[in-house]
Each structure stands twice: as C-alpha cells, then as structure tokens.
C-alpha cells in the first residue's frame, strides 16, 4: 500500500500554506467581527433614528466615551502583559480629589496641578501595583483588588465623602471648548490612542509587553527585564486612569469621591470585546478603540431610540461572552467543545 512517493507533496503543501497566509493575517485581527457589528449597528441607528447621525449627537457620543476610552487604553497595556488592573476606578477618583486639592486648597496653577495629578497616577500605578506585581511577584488580581479598596478608602477619608467644586476656566475649556470642530477631550483621546499605538507597535518596550504577556518565562530567559516591564505597564495604566480623572473633573466641574466605581467593568469589557486576549500576549489598542466605540454607539443609539438603558447591559454582556467564545474556539482545538463541532454531522457519510 504505497501511494506514489514520486509526486512531491512537500512543495504542494507549501503553496497551499502560502495561499492561506494572506487570509490568516486578516483573520488574525480578532476585532473584525465586532467591527462588523459596530458598523451594522451604526448604519441601523443612522437610518432609523433621525437624531442619531447629527454632528451634535456624534460629538456628544465621542465626548461621552472619552474617559472610558483613555482608561481602556491603559487597561489594554495591563491585559496585554498578562494582567489586569482592577484599581483603575479608584485611581481615577483619587486623581480627581488630588487635582481638586492641588488646584483649590493649595492654589497651584492649574497646568502644574494637572501635571502633578498625572504624575501621581503614574506613581500609584507603578510604585504600588507595578512594584508588587512585577518586582515582588504577587498575583495581579490580589494586588489590584486590594489597592482598589485601599485607594477608594483614601478617597473617602481625604474628601470627607464630599464633592467639592473645582472652578477653572482652563478645565472648562478642556471639556467644552472646540478645537478644529471637535472638543478638546476628543483630541486628547485621539492623541492617547496614537501614542499607545506607536509605543506598542514601534518600540522594543511595546514588544516586551507582548512578550511578557505571551510567555513571561521565555521572555525572562531571553534577557528581557520582565519586572521593569510590568512596573512600567502599571504606571501607564495609572497615568491614563489619572488622565481619565482629570477629564472627569473638567466635565463635571467638581471632584467627587463616588466616580469610577463601575468603570473597571466597562474598561475590561471594552478591551476584551476588542479582541485582546485575557491571557495576554495578543490584541492591541485598535481593537480596544473598536470595543469602546461599540459600547458608546450601543448606549447612545439605544438612548436616542428611547429604549430602556438596561438593554445596553444585556447586549454588552452577551457580545462579551460571544467574543471570548469565538476567541477560544479559534485559538485551540478544545476537546470540551468537540460536541459543538460534531453537531454539524458525524461524517461517516463517505460510505
């Protein structure tokens, strides 16, 4: 039973493989499915609701997601590195309080106060979360769960659980003034996106983040400074959470201890819907942008349609689970899902 060894199956297999490459690079962008849903959803709302596709509504949509957007970009770094930062909401609130104190009580010029606030967020994230996760080697879940509670406690103590007004023309401009037709908050969002995209794609540090998330052991044995990479990742997450806090204060005109309590869920959902793996090592900020816009369009569209906002939760939750399911199905030939595939037909049909 020898099937002619003369024909050359090696090269044949190679050409087949090459043909599949272009296809693979396309399907590798794991957010494409969600992007498609986003586009369909956008078109649907545009045609059915006359008030959806107006420049006023779209601007308010973008401004509305700006806080979630910058925090989710930070969360993308954490998740790409194989972790998660559960303390983003508390850092956001704490940064708001800090900004209020610096600007109002201490009386610093607003520009300096904002810079110090951002620095404070980076230090909280880097020197506390990042230090314990990256350098000491504790579990990221435990550390950031703990600091989330801790920071929230500090917020409540420091603010006396009271919301204080922060009056600053500069902050008002930041939230409400237009520049080249778009609110400044939206420009900040774009800038953060571009910088994150550049850092992840075009620096060795960006590669390190993927490498540490993909296989920390192998990264360490290749000479990559895993601890420092993780520390910097959590510093970035902290910095962007603080930036979210600054935008929050600017939009409300006050520093409130109550903000950001559920932010971590939305941010995590946006990152996962955007196709970044919860195991780390694959995904990116383009997907996260799609994920955030998905949440934003869904919420805004349903609001414009006059549908109860709880439907947004139902749809978001379902899409999140489906997105992760698709990723898992694609990622591996899992036994546990074997039955799903057999449904198609136990193919003993060739007889």
């Amino acid at each position: 039973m020898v099937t002619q060894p003369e024909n050359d199956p090696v090269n044949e297999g190679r050409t087949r493989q090459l043909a599949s490459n272009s296809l693979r690079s396309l399907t590798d962008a794991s957010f494409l499915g969600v992007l498609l849903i986003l586009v369909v959803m956008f078109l649907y709302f545009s045609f059915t609701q006359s008030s959806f596709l107006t420049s006023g509504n779209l601007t308010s949509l973008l401004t509305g997601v700006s806080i979630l957007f910058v925090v989710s970009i930070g969360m993308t770094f954490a998740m790409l590195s194989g972790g998660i930062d559960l303390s983003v909401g508390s850092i956001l609130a704490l940064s708001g309080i800090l900004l209020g104190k610096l600007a109002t009580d201490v009386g610093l010029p607003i520009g300096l106060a904002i810079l110090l606030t951002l620095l404070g967020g980076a230090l909280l994230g880097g020197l506390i979360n990042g230090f314990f996760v990256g350098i000491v080697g504790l579990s990221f879940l435990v550390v950031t769960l703990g600091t989330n509670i801790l920071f929230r406690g500090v917020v409540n103590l420091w603010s006396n659980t009271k919301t204080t007004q922060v009056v600053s023309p500069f902050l008002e401009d930041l939230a409400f003034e237009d520049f080249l037709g778009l609110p400044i908050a939206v420009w900040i969002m774009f800038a953060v996106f571009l910088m994150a995209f550049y850092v992840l794609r075009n620096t060795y540090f960006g590669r390190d983040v993927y490498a540490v998330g993909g296989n920390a052991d192998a990264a360490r044995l290749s000479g990559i400074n895993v601890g420092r990479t993780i520390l910097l990742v959590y510093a970035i997450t902290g910095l962007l959470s603080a930036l979210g806090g600054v935008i929050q204060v600017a939009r409300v005109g006050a520093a409130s201890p109550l903000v950001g309590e559920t932010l971590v869920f939305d941010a995590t959902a946006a990152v996962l819907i955007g196709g970044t793996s919860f195991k780390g090592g694959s995904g990116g900020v383009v997907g996260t942008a799609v994920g955030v816009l998905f949440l934003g369009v869904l919420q805004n569209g349903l609001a414009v349609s006059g549908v109860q906002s709880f439907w947004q939760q139902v749809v978001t939750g379902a899409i999140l689970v489906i997105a992760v399911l698709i990723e898992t199905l694609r990622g591996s030939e899992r036994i546990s899902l074997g039955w799903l595939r057999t449904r198609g037909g136990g193919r003993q049909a060739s007889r």
Partner: protein
Amino acid sequence: MPSEATDRVVAIEMNRGPLLSARGVDKHYGGVYALTDASLEVGHGEVHGLIGENGSGKSTLLKILCGQTMPDSADIDLEGAPLPLGNPVRSLVAGIATVTQETTLVPELSVAENIVLGRRAIRRWWGLDRKASRARASEVLDRLDLRLDPRAIVERLRPDERQMVEIARAISMDARVLILDEPTSSLTDEEVESLFGVIRNLKERGVSTIFVSHRLKEVFEITDHLTVLRDGVTVAREAIADLDAGKLIALMVGKQVDHKPPAAAPAAGRTRLEVSDLAVPGIIEDVSFEVGAGEIVGFAGLVGAGRSELLKTIFGLHPSAEGRIEIDGADAWSRGPRQAMRNGIAFVPADRKEQGLILPMSIRENLVMAHTARLRRLRRPPRRREVDQLDEVVANLRVAGATGRGGAPISSLSGGNQQKIVLAKWLAVDPKAILLDEPTRGVDVGAKEEIYGILDRLRTNGPAILVSSSEMSELLRLCDRIFVMYRGKIVTCLAKEDASETVIAHYATGNN
C-alpha cells in the same frame, strides 16, 4: 459484563480482518492540509508503529482516532463497526484509549483512585467506595503484572510508573487499541524496557498498540508493522522485518539522508569556560570542569542527575548557587539571565514551548528577541533589517515554511523548524559559551541531523558548547568529551573514543 466479552471473542474468531482500519482520512486547517487521504490499518494483538517527521500529520491522525479532532472526511472501522467521529467519549467507549506525553493523572490522588477516576460504578451515594476502587485497581494491575501499590500517591511515582498507571487506566476501560504517543521521551533505558514488557503483555491479550516514537531503535525493537506518514499522506505500510533504518528514514524524509561523520574535533583550543567548585544545595555538588574554544562537551545522566540544573546554574537561574565561573579568564558569575547574557552566555532551554519561544508572537520577533534585549527600550525596531536577518537564517539553517513569512506566528512552524529558530535566536547574540538543554527533543530525524550540523559549524566561531541530553546517541554523535553525572556530581569524564552507550549507562546508574 461477560456476555459482551464472549461476543468479542466470537468476533475475533470470525473476523479475520483488521482490528482498526482508517481509510480516506482528510483534514485541513485553514488552507493547510494536515492529512490527505491518509490510511492506517492495525491488526489484532499487533504493535503498530506510526512514524513520520514533525508536521507529517501523525498527531492529527491520532487526534482523529481518539475523537479530539473532527476530520473533513474519514472512513474508520473498529472491529468492523464504524467508529463515531469527533467525540472523545465515544471513541473511548468504543475502545480507543490514548496515553500522551502530557500525563493526565491527578498527582495528589492515589494510583487506585486515578485508575477508576470518573467511573460511576465506584461511587456510592455517600461518596467514593475506596475499597471497591482499590479492588478494581489491583485487579487491573495484576492483569498487567504491574507491581505498583494501589495506595501510592501518583506524585511520588517515577515517570515510567506514572505511565504504567495511565496504561492501567486505559486497560480498565476495556481498551482494544492503545495509543502511545512518544511514551519513552522522558524515560531512561531501563524504564523503557519495563514499558516494553507491558506492551508485549498487552499484545498477548489481544490488545493492539499504536506506538509513536522518534527513536527508531525503539521502533525496531517493539513494533510488528509500521505505517509511515509524510506530509499528510500514508507513504508506506510495511512489516518491520522488511525494513532497515536507512530504508525507513528514506521513507520518512522522502530522500536518502547521508549520515555525515561528525567534523573532526579542532585542535583543543585555549580554555574558554572554566567552572570550579560549583554547588547548589541539594541539587549540584562540587562540580568543576573546563571547556575549550570550539569544543563540544556533553552532559549525560538520568533524569534528575542534575545535568539541566547545571546548565541553568551557569546561566544564573539558581540564586543559591556557589562557586566560580570564568570565561576567558574573567569572572562570569551571573545572578540572572540578563547578567549571564552580558557575560556572553547563551542558554537554549529544553522546553521549547514553555521556555524557548513566545508562541503568540511572530517568527521574526522571536528570532531577534535575545540579541535586542539590551538595546534602549524606546528605540524603534528596524523591521527591514530584521526581515533580512530572518532571510539569512532561513537560508543558512534551512527553516522550512518560514520563507517570506516573518510576520506569521512562530506556532505555525513545525517543531524542528521552531527549534532552529530558537537556536538562531541564541546564535545571534554571538555567545562565548552556549548551553543547550535537550537541543533536539521532539524533533524529527532530518531536522536532528541538521541541528547537529549547525552545532558542528558553530565550532569555528570558537564558543564553548555545552550539551545536556537524555539521548546517548546524540552525545556520542556530537561531543568531544562527555561528562557523566549522577546525583548532582560529575562521576567521570569520557573522551570521545572511550565513550559508548554501555559505558555511559554504567556510570550514569551510579557504578564506578
């Protein structure tokens, strides 16, 4: 169930056809065909070898047989009845059991508990019936002539004993066909012999075995017939008596592989690496040796003798180590991989997937990872130059499947080609000493020979080359000198001309 058993005997008497027959097995992943009209036929009570290079489709075929993967089309009969496809539980019930490289035992449970794991009959309403479990387990162990204590905790067993437990579990489920996928890769020669005893025992009881191994010696020793797969196609089904190693390799790689004699050892260069009084409490004791420039030295020993630990220690992975390490006369003591790399040391770990590669990342990124690890982190990686570097590596090391595909994930390459990329990644740092732990584990014969060639050529660059391997033939093929380790100590140093498998085995088992 006695009636079923008698039915089976009758079936065997009446049916002179094969026990398991698979025909027309097709499977593709995306645009890549893993199997094209592959076939496999296993007789009653036969040990059947399934042989092929990495990427030939062996694993896919096995996964289809045990229901883990759904074929595009296939025609599979077991004892004349069609086998349900794509369902692992039904394959198991039908009588196909698999013992893979990764053990599926629960380490914290006893042998008996593992054997009856998941069986309903042993469960009472108040929980597990320990006595019944143990009785059932002992019965199976006796049937296989295995001297294992059913109460022993699996964690404390030797690797071969754990494999016996897996086989016992398969047999307790009335397996008719047992699939052993690379069962010997982590076993010593003695343990392999005891495994073969069990396989022969099963054969007498009419249980057939599909035996998959890269070690041709074992294939010739244990199998009756074998099927050779190449690029997803069944190229031959032959009785083992009609084959020799040369013919078999030719069938596997599709051409004659010339076994080049190893390059002559260069005139012993000056000392490159000097290790003195190296010790890690409880692991390595008082190890000293020297390696010359361009010299390849091997480390032999049983699993746990300390040979991989020795390499890890030199690379700075054991913080509690003591001793002295010098390269070219300068201190090269390292407290971690980064310092080791600054000292000019490279380490190719044994476990490619766990420690050598970052699977979700691209071929190109994996290749350049080590030698760019010391650059400023905010620099922009020069993509064009990396592509050129990859092209060069692909040409020099003959990395199949990587041409023009630098951006493809490294996981899309076959095992042997992945290993070449791991090697290339470390050669790119231009090391003064390169430590290789099991450099060809899980790599097919063709790629193995190529990797040996790469190491031979590397001599001219003059690094000290240290190889730890569980395959004696590999050490004998490669090394100028072989250090044999036993319980954390170097017990002897053998020159190439004095070394043989028998001599190494003698020292490796603690004789002097």
